[in-house]
């Protein structure tokens, strides 16, 4: 009985945290996909300088922990450049940049997986590279990118819990606050876990629908 009372009492705060988590991840993932698409296309292209910059970016992001990136963006940059950054905005930027490195690799691999004959056929008709990419290659590659993209989405969603460390009151942080006043760590972490789990289950379901729909 105790559990249900606690559940009822905690739910509004936890849901508010969940909503913030979803806000951060939805904006963050859009940022990530845009940067990732640009980097991915640079990486299958032939411009050596751009490729070098893209490689540097991807290696740096993948080679450092997300928590370090979050601290760097929230504490590091503002301290030397003399500006104030909202914690939630810093979180969105960090999640977006972090996911973009992985997404760019997903996009690169998806494009590379399309038979080179497709590009050759498009180009042999006289179509420019960009049009061939947009009309022929990317639509085919996108289908193959769906499963790994959803996977990255799920990883990044869970990664938002790290933002509790800079005071963003997202789902994990909400749990911590409730525990601080109720001392019911076991029950609250189970509730937090269930909420994450439910969202991710729904996402998984939607993604398999999407996969079936495009094929």
């Amino acid at each position: 009985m105790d559990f249900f009372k606690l559940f009822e009492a905690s739910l509004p705060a936890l849901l508010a945290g969940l909503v913030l988590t979803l806000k951060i991840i939805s904006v963050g993932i859009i940022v990530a996909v845009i940067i990732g698409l640009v980097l991915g296309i640079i990486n299958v292209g032939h411009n050596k300088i751009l490729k070098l910059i893209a490689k540097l970016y991807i290696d740096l992001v993948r080679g450092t922990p997300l928590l370090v990136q979050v601290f760097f963006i929230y504490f590091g940059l503002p301290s030397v450049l003399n500006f104030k950054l909202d914690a939630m905005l810093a979180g969105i930027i960090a999640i977006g940049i972090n996911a973009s490195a992985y997404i760019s690799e997903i996009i690169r691999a998806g494009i590379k997986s399309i038979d080179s004959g497709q590009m050759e056929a498009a180009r042999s008709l006289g179509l420019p590279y960009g049009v061939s990419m947009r009309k022929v290659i990317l639509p085919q590659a996108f289908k193959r990118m769906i499963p790994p993209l959803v996977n990255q989405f799920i990883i990044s969603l869970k990664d938002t819990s790290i933002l509790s460390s800079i005071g963003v009151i997202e789902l994990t942080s909400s749990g911590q606050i409730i525990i601080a006043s109720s001392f019911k760590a076991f029950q609250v972490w189970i509730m937090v876990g269930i909420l994450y789990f439910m969202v991710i289950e729904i996402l998984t379901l939607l993604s398999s629908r999407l996969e079936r729909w495009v094929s």
Partner: protein
Amino acid sequence: MIEVQNLKKSYGIHEVLKDIDLHVKKNEVVCIIGPSGSGKSTLLRCLNGLESATAGSISIEKVELTNKKANINKIRENIGMVFQSFNLFPNLSVLKNITLAPMYIKKLKNGEAEHLALNLLGQVGLREKANVNPDTLSGGQKQRVAIARALAMQPNIMLFDEPTSALDPEMVGEVLNVMKKLAKEGMTMVVVTHEMGFAREVSDRVLFMEDGRIIEEGSPEQIFEKPTQKRTQSFLEKVL
């Protein structure tokens, strides 16, 4: 129409084409035969810039393709290419496969482009397949659609890269028939093929290639009846 001079192509230290000269006149049908790895396909792919030449020059209708400033897209509009593996776009319907380039490049309206595409599909006997997905077609049908797609840009030259090599034997005929019809209509064609019967019947000139060189060339009668080079003779003995 096509002027190739001293063309060389290497991949690293591996020389695939060694000093190729080739001249194709308007309305001429040239078949290139020879063993695998002789450079036939590479030569064909150089003709529309899918492979870049290491040395030498290629001109298509007086425009030098090997010139770095050449507008390769413009040149390609005028050269249709048909591939061994069809390379139809599986994300588009048969009709959209054909209308894509004319709509984008020639800015045809949807209706005009579809009219053109249906006409071409009629010519290759596949009008009723306009709205299906290419994946549902047989190999022979795919290749006929690929030919229609290449023709949609109304090119003056058609290149065929072993167009029947990936087909089941019973489907080779339908594709060759479409090609024969094209040849009769006066299309300038360069065909890399293993179909000796086709080369003999349709071509004005046959080139035998081996080891990156054109070993022998002449009329089909000359090449198939009385080849002068030992290597041509031994190749033909094996394939005929």
